[in-house]
């Protein structure tokens, strides 16, 4: 695949925008093209928050996700709102507290993201980075190099939280790999 359209959604404070920025930044460091957008303003306050990344080998003109190849939903609200955007061959990643519909096209990964964040890292603040780990694992090393991912995370999160976030990233990878294990 030459182009990935990724949509990350959750509630206001969950950091999905930062997650999207990290993905886009890493892609660029990888020498790819990437565009990142998000929804702003009152609707982003409190309610569902959405961030988008498109990663592509080619130049990206239209910067918005049309159909998501990967959709992340961290809350029921955001799942309900954005599930329709998922491409029919797309991949859905949802937190395991979310009730999903039966007839989702494509692959579905139901992961204990919030739970593990709380339990293993004692903060819900890393849920976004766990999610990145999962997305990274699904995209595969061929798309973005793991070290680039880790470096980008290290650059973009608050200095004191770098280690924890890198661990969270790895946790996300494991969540995907675990499924395959």
């Amino acid at each position, binding site marked *: 695949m030459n182009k990935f359209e990724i949509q990350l959604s959750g509630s*206001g404070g969950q950091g999905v925008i930062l997650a999207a920025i990290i993905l886009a930044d890493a892609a660029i460091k990888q020498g790819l093209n990437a565009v990142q957008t998000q929804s702003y303003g*009152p609707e982003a*306050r*409190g309610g569902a928050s959405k961030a988008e990344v498109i990663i592509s080998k080619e130049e990206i003109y239209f910067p918005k996700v049309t159909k998501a190849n990967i959709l992340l939903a961290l809350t029921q609200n955001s799942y309900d709102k954005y599930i329709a955007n998922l491409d029919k061959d797309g991949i859905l990643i949802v937190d395991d507290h979310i009730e999903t519909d039966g007839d989702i096209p494509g692959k579905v990964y139901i992961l204990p993201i919030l739970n593990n964040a709380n339990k293993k890292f004692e903060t819900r603040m890393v849920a976004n980075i766990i999610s990145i780990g999962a997305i990274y694992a699904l995209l595969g090393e061929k798309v973005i190099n793991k070290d680039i991912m880790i470096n980008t995370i290290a650059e973009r999160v608050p200095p004191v939280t770098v280690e924890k976030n890198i661990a969270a990233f790895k946790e996300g990878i494991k969540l995907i790999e675990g499924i395959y294990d």
Partner: protein
Amino acid sequence: MNCNETTKNYYRVDKLPHIWCPGCGHGTLMNAVVRAVEKLQLNKDDLVIVSGIGCSSRAPGYLDFNTLHTTHGRALAFATGIKLANPKLHVIVITGDGDSSAIGGNHLIHAARRNIDITTIVFNNNIYGMTGGQYSPTTPYGDFATTSAYGNIDKPFDLCSLAQGAGSTYVGRATAYHVTLMQRLIEKAIQNKGFSFVEGLSICPTYYGRKNKKGDAFEMHSFYKNNCVDIRVVEKTPEKGENKILIGEFHNDPKPEYTESYQVIIDKFQGMGGN
């Protein structure tokens, strides 16, 4: 609807929950406005709430009166038109520190100067909340905001002094914590026939709080609880006011009201030369 009677009677409950962040002080202050109106038993049809633009200025949309959400800073100018056109209406302006004293500062001092019968209530959170946390004319010296990363070098307005200096005939201040005082001040402000100004110190945990390490909503409330003192106390014991925020009724000195003065002219000249 699952809420108390006051809410049921005075809110547009289908518009709730409001867009404000968790813990935002504006919600508490809006409740003080509603309780004051309830206490005074004002007819909902005769009450107009006017606001500008900002988080605070979203209040009217939730309230079951005649409500007007105008342009940024201009609420008082719109309100002046409403009040003059129909002096029988009670006109309350709900505004923010930015809305009323940055872009809207001129309308504030002129409405106060004219002593037109409008009650202005400022939800002052010391920041521009709606646009994401820039410093406002009430951000304390040295504080941080997205546009004062090196500490704010602007000196803040004392909004109550400004309003009083400009001619406001009723002036008071309370906080999101001192919500009962807030309600009482609003009641008296509405009853004052003239321009009334009530400042409600609000809290913005999301921006002002976070940028300035003020803790969560409860901590910000607690700050007001511990650092405010009523003007009457200070008048008796000035030491008690040191390094404190003054609250209470600062000024209550009725003067001829604008629309009434105008009516005198109409009564005298209507029909003369005209139709």
